[in-house]
């Protein structure tokens, strides 16, 4: 989302202005910030984010506008014809410096111990302004970190009150769990009634983490738990990697956004000491088989429709809190991560002759909500949790940096058997529309018995808010829709509630862009980087010999050796789950 959105057919008046002596012509209504970019001038910002509405709160982007008595915020100030702007006058520099000095004088900004050290917007701005001392008395606001959530940590002492997290939580996700509280120096961004994050209806999506300019909100770091397991000789430590991690771990380690690094990722994990390196794509394929059959069964037997996908744990927690009356619509399939976890400690343990209690199951996910998902009691088998620990892409990046591995120059290697074979359908789970497309590739061929004329379902791809398509399955029309980001999901849910939804199948992913834009992904994640990761995802799909889940030979083997049939008894025991109504506030005892 750019600050200026213009309909192409509209006649737009243009304005010519000068910025630091450079003349520039832009459509009227463009902000000074955007216009300055056109002449190569980057005005520093903190509360501004390219994907969020401009706020004008932090006052860092102030500029002098000729004829205006006060300094103006460039991120909100619209250009006018003939305007003269100065972005680098002594007054502007002094004002910006004081703003940053005041931010540094409030709270705890100790860079070396901060999770955002070397990737912090406040640090960058302080450096570029040449701030070497803080002329004000530093006032701490002693507040404990909120460590209550399985997914996200909040550190109010590092917060600079930019309110980006407030905007993303309310506007993009429609959750509205974060809001400014109090006034003046005592202002804080906190949860409703100032409760712990684990006690309120936070869905753990981590979009707040992605937009936070500093280290005030971040993922719960589980890297030490994994190092400990790797160092324990009595444990067989296995790892699975999500579809979206292969197109983002390179970016986390300094490669350009959209780099596909599947083989290097596998090599890095082996170097770290994992006994087996498996691919979540395998159980993504399995999800398609189970979910596809569930859809067909619901259509045949008059089950609840539309059926909603269930791979995205942030989305699941959202519907449990906010639309529990629609839970019957959600597919009973576990997410690929949890299907993998359940099979690892049963099928794999049996096959490899390992006591399931000795298996330590790690997963690498683009997602903070997955950390919560693996702690759900439904996700525990006889030998403890199916997935022991979840690392985000960022945490894995941190571990690889600790190892001192030269990631870019690692050799490529392949995943281990039996959970290493996967298809392009599994890969595209990482992008919005991908689960739908993967399902359609399989459902079409299962129903019609014919080979798809074209495997690519373009109408469900891309970053449009809500996408829809009609598919003809040999006379049976299937109507599908896809939404990403919970505000968009809400539109489809409200339709269902009003009884106006005529879809059969709806894919919902919690995060904008799907998992490639998840809360565990490299920072910054913007619409621009999301688009690049999506492009890489479809490229990875195209490069694979197998692109349909039901053609995966390892899946066929899994059914013949162990599961017997889709939706069978074993499947129900291991691969399907239940959901529950969750209150907006947890009762305090």
């Amino acid at each position: 989302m750019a600050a200026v959105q213009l309909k192409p057919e509209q006649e737009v008046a243009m304005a010519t202005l000068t910025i630091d002596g450079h003349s520039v012509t832009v459509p009227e209504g463009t902000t000074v910030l955007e216009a300055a970019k056109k002449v190569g001038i980057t005005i520093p910002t903190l509360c501004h984010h390219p994907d969020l509405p401009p706020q004008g709160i932090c006052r860092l982007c102030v500029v002098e506008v000729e004829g205006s008595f006060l300094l103006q915020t460039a991120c909100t100030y619209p250009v006018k014809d003939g305007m003269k702007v100065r972005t680098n006058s002594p007054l502007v520099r002094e004002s910006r410096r004081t703003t940053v000095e005041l931010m540094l004088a409030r709270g705890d900004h100790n860079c070396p111990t901060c999770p955002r050290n070397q990737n912090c917007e406040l640090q960058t701005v302080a450096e570029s302004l040449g701030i070497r001392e803080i002329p004000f008395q530093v006032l701490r606001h002693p507040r404990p970190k909120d460590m209550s959530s399985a997914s996200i940590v909040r550190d109010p002492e590092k917060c600079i009150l930019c309110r980006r997290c407030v905007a993303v939580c309310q506007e993009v996700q429609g959750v509205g769990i974060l809001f400014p509280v109090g006034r003046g120096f005592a202002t804080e961004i906190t949860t409703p009634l100032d409760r712990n994050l684990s006690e309120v209806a936070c869905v753990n999506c981590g979009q707040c983490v992605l937009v936070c300019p500093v280290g005030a909100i971040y993922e719960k770091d589980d890297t030490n738990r994994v190092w400990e397991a790797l160092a324990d000789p009595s444990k067989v430590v296995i790892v699975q990697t999500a579809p979206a991690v292969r197109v983002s771990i390179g970016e986390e380690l300094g490669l350009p956004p959209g780099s596909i690094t599947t083989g290097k990722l596998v090599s890095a994990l082996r170097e770290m000491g994992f006994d087996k390196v498996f691919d979540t794509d395998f159980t993504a394929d399995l999800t398609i088989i189970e979910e596809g059959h569930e859809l067909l069964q619901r259509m045949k037997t008059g089950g609840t429709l539309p059926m909603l996908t269930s791979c995205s744990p942030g989305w699941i927690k959202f519907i449990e809190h906010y639309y529990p009356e629609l839970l019957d619509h959600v597919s009973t399939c576990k997410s690929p991560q949890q299907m993998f976890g359940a099979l690892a400690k049963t099928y794999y343990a049996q096959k490899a002759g390992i006591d399931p209690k000795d298996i330590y199951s790690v997963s690498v996910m683009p997602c903070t909500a997955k950390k919560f998902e693996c702690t759900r009691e439904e996700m525990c088998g006889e030998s403890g949790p199916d997935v022991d620990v979840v690392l985000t892409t960022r945490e894995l990046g941190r571990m690889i940096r600790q190892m001192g591995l030269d990631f870019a120059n690692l050799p490529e290697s392949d995943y281990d058997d039996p959970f290493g074979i996967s298809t392009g359908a599994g890969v595209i789970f990482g992008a919005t529309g991908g689960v739908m497309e993967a399902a359609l590739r399989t459902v079409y061929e299962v129903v019609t018995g014919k080979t798809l004329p074209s495997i690519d379902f373009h109408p469900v791809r891309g970053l449009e808010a809500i996408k829809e398509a009609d598919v003809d399955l040999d006379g049976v029309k299937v109507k599908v829709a896809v939404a990403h980001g919970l505000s968009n999901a809400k539109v489809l849910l409200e339709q269902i509630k009003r009884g106006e939804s005529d879809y059969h199948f709806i894919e919902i992913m919690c995060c904008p862009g799907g998992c490639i834009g998840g809360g565990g992904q490299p920072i910054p994640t913007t619409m621009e980087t999301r688009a690049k990761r999506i492009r890489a995802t479809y490229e990875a799909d195209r490069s694979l010999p197998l692109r349909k889940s039901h053609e995966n030979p390892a899946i066929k083997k899994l059914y013949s050796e162990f599961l017997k049939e889709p939706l069978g008894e074993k499947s129900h025991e291991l691969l399907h789950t239940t959901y529950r109504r969750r209150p907006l506030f947890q009762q305090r005892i």
Partner: protein
Amino acid sequence: MNACSTAPTLSTETDKQIDRVIEEYKDEPSPLLEILNEVQHIFGYLSDDMLIAISEKLSIPTSQVYGVATFYSLLSTRPKGKHIIRVCESAPCHVMGSESVLRAVKDELGIDLGETTPDGLFTLESTSCLGICSVGPAMMVNDRVFGNLTREKVRLILRRYAKDKEASVS
């Protein structure tokens, strides 16, 4: 959105009173502040359960309702004493000795700013200008304004309120 109800532990009577307030103000351009103000007027403060109930009834996120309730100093999310003392902290009163007035209140009641006496009788707060600068230093007790204060006057006023536990100081 019709969210999963959290069934706050409000009494039916309290719930009905909140409904009546909402009914009265729901067509105002920004009803939330009016409603919070009126509910506080009835119950003395805004409890967590009241805020949750207001949020559900208005379909406004609780975080936002809580944010508004904590922004305005005349709204309170904690129970307050029977009598609320607000000592003016603005410049004209400061010049006339409001600091000594504040100290007198603290000494007399044994509490600090923002605190309530253990017997629940008094809460001490500061306030910005009361608009009676000509008779500073000034303070308010509940809805009444007192000016030209000295330490001795403060003691007398507070003792009168303390004696009359029914709060009908005339």
